[in-house]
């Protein structure tokens, strides 16, 4: 059997290569957050890899997923020095803040992570994601608030693509779930300076 691999890379003016670690407590929707980044990037024609890393515990421990977005084929899916970290809890902040590349970005859930970064060579974006999600009526969409902020800040993927990709992730859920996640994405986008 021979299946020719169809090249699906859309030509970019400038090549991009972004490695991301998204981390938080198990149950905060970290895997979903990473998958949605990957899916949205793929839907925009980029190459992506996504891989999760769990501790032995399922709930309450830290979980993180590694995502790579690139305009070129990706070799290894693991990320040791991320360009960006999306951090939703304190243990993850302690673990990953030091690993970020010089000049990189950390997006922090400031509702939970109160301290400041000691690093002067990275950019910090504070998003009160849990508080925003509570106001929306469901703390579980804090992950989408974080993602919305990230999308605005980095600008690699459009929020429209992320919203349309939501439907591929929540295939069996009802519309209200998608609407709530959509709203959370937008709130995050606004929190990072985007106009709603």
């Amino acid at each position, binding site marked *: *059997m021979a*299946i020719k691999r*169809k090249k*699906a890379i859309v030509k970019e003016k400038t090549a991009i290569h972004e490695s991301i670690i998204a981390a938080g407590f198990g149950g905060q929707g970290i895997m979903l957050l990473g998958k949605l980044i990957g899916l949205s990037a793929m839907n925009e*024609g980029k*190459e992506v890899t*996504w*891989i999760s890393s769990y501790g032995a515990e399922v709930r309450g421990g830290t979980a993180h997923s590694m995502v790579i977005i690139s305009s070129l084929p990706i070799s*290894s899916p693991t990320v*040791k020095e991320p360009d960006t970290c999306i951090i939703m809890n304190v243990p993850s902040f302690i673990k990953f803040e030091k690993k970020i590349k010089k000049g990189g970005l950390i997006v922090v859930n400031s509702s939970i992570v109160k301290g400041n970064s000691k690093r002067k060579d990275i950019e910090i974006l504070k998003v009160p994601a849990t508080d925003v999600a509570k106001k929306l009526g469901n703390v579980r969409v804090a992950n989408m608030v974080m993602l919305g902020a990230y999308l605005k800040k980095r600008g690699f993927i459009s929020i429209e693509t992320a919203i349309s990709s939501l439907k591929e992730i929540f295939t069996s859920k009802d519309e209200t779930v998608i609407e709530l996640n959509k709203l959370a994405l937008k709130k995050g986008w606004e929190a990072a300076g985007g106009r709603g």
Partner: protein
Amino acid sequence: MSKVVKRILITGNEACAEGAIRAGCRFYAGYPITPQNELIGYMSKRMREAGGTFIQAESELAAINMVFGAAAAGERAMTSSSGPGISLKQEGISYLSGCELPAVVVNVMRGGPGLGNIAPSQSDYFQATRGGGHGDYRTIVLAPASVEEFATFAFDAFDLADKYRIVTLVLTDGALGQMMEPVPGSLFSDMKPAKRQSKKGWILDGCRGRKARSIKSLFLKDGELEELNKKLQRKYEEISKKEVRCEVLYEKDSEIFLIAYGIVARIVKSCVEKMRKNGLKVGVIRPITLWPFPNDIISKAVSKAKSMLVVEMSEGQMVEDVRLAVGDKCKVRFYGRSGGNIPTEDEITKILIDSRRGK
């Protein structure tokens, strides 16, 4: 955006399972073990939808022996696991081989020995390529390097298994198993199984209209077992001639070849592309079948190259086969990471530069 070809984002484990279903696999028995859980999870749903049998067995031993039964009854059957479970399955793999039954076994490798850890590894190379269990036998070993290949090799594995009545292994690692990456949207719908050979001549399905028969690997009479062994060897020889798969990059002018399989081959390729831009004459050899091993291809490459660097996620297993293929014709270096570490491009580049300086 309209020019973007529709793609699917899927984990390697799930893609493998779907590839197997598309190949007509209708019997799966497995046991949970990380990092292959997405595979058994996908099968539990999809296999029953497809009208086949899914059994979560009580152990890997039971799973492989259920596969043995299903294969004896003529079904396309498969099991999957990771190192510790694959060790248990060796009993069944040996019996399948002795009875010349076709089956597909998937090993999503993790770190060992013992319980090791659950991170990616390539440390089951010896076990996979030397037969693995007791007795004088071989299994075909396919090593995918992408999620797409994991699916297509699982698909191909069933044809190979049936063609030679042999166990075919798909050997990958935890990273390829658990990671998601895009595959073409038409990947699975394009998978059309070739016409299958009839198994009527040897399966056990009740002796209606024919003489009763048995499937066995016990040969007590004088000379009987050696006769089987010789027959198996002839089969292995034929497979070695016809089924070798290998990818070579920059074959013509490379002074140094990097040799790697699976996920490591991607990393090595990426290194080589970068070094080529800097004018270094380096190439890649990626064995796709680990058994039969591409001895001739490697041996041919040696005539022009000065040295080879084998990179593995183990403390050095495939490197032994490379050395056998190369003999004393050129220097073979080795770089390995183990315990769940994936070698980085920087590490490999440094080793190469050092070796060029003669370190």
